[in-house]
């Protein structure tokens, strides 16, 4: 599938009706999501024929993108049941067979070794400090091949240090810098549209890591 085609399919997905500020529910735009998964597939072979988990899947954009690019099994995990309803509707509309699990990533019970790749657009931790690092820590415990994630560019050094030192990643690489346009979703947003610089990261877990939690 071409990048343009992927982006256009993702652009048609339903997004949050009433986003919840405490969960930092910002939709992953089709531009970013398509590039993230397209890169994972075409530069690294981390998607097609793989088991892919989408952490904090929200309305399922990244998981849908993975399924469209040929992932054999996709699981979307989110704490919010309304998001999961929209996500499963999105999957159904595209006739994709995606599994969803309602859970809190921070106290997830998961047997390791089976998931190849985790993709995620974690809460950036602006509301709940450290939320993005919690997600990353868990992702590196269950992925056997790679973790793709978005983090604010301003946190680049911190993310790298945490991944390599605290979470035992064997590599942590910024693949590109993207602009995340956060539309005025919430009342506290003063400007109509705000561009946030985010990094697209690829983390590789240590061999033998990914044993689960």
């Amino acid at each position, binding site marked *: 599938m071409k990048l343009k085609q992927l982006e256009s399919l993702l652009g048609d997905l339903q997004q949050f009706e009433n986003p919840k500020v405490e969960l930092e529910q910002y939709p992953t735009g089709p531009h970013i999501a398509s590039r993230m998964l397209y890169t994972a597939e075409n530069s690294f072979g981390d998607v097609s024929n793989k088991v892919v988990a989408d952490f904090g899947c929200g309305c399922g954009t990244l998981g849908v993108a993975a399924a469209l690019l040929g992932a054999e099994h996709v699981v979307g995990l989110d704490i919010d049941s309304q998001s999961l309803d929209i996500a499963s509707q999105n999957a159904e509309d595209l006739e994709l067979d995606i599994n969803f699990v309602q859970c*809190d990533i921070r106290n997830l019970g998961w047997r390791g070794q089976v998931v190849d790749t985790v993709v995620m657009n974690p809460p950036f931790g602006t509301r709940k400090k450290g939320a993005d690092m919690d997600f990353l820590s868990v992702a590196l415990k269950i992925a056997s091949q790679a973790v793709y994630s978005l983090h604010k560019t301003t946190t680049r050094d911190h993310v790298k240090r945490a991944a390599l030192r605290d979470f035992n990643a064997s590599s942590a690489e910024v693949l590109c810098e993207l602009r995340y346009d956060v539309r005025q979703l919430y009342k506290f947003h003063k400007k109509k549209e705000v561009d946030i610089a985010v990094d697209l990261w690829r983390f590789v877990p240590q061999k033998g890591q990914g044993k689960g939690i």
Partner: protein
Amino acid sequence: MRLLTHNMLSSNIKGVTNGFPLRLEIEKAVEKQVDFNVDFLKNMFVKIEWKALVDASRAMGYVDLPDQTEPSMLDSDEFLKKFHHALLELHLEEGALICPETDRRFPVNKGIPNMLLHEDEV
């Protein structure tokens, strides 16, 4: 929910030492056909907890998986087709997943298990 997902999920309630595998309580099961992918199955075979898959598939009413396996079975298309069916095509749609240690019920609605823990379980 496919049984492949079931093969990864475990109960993470505070104090539980082995929350895997979760037992299945089935109100409604469905089957959805998916393409047969030999390479994927071979790759999965070494990662799957076989007994958990066999027990889960039997609970779903599918009894064709053997108790014992050996690597040579991967050369048999007949075996791979059964494995494929159990792993990817059987879905728990309505029911529950039960913690093997505490019998706590995690409900499954519209194929989505709710694994959220209560405050006193974290």
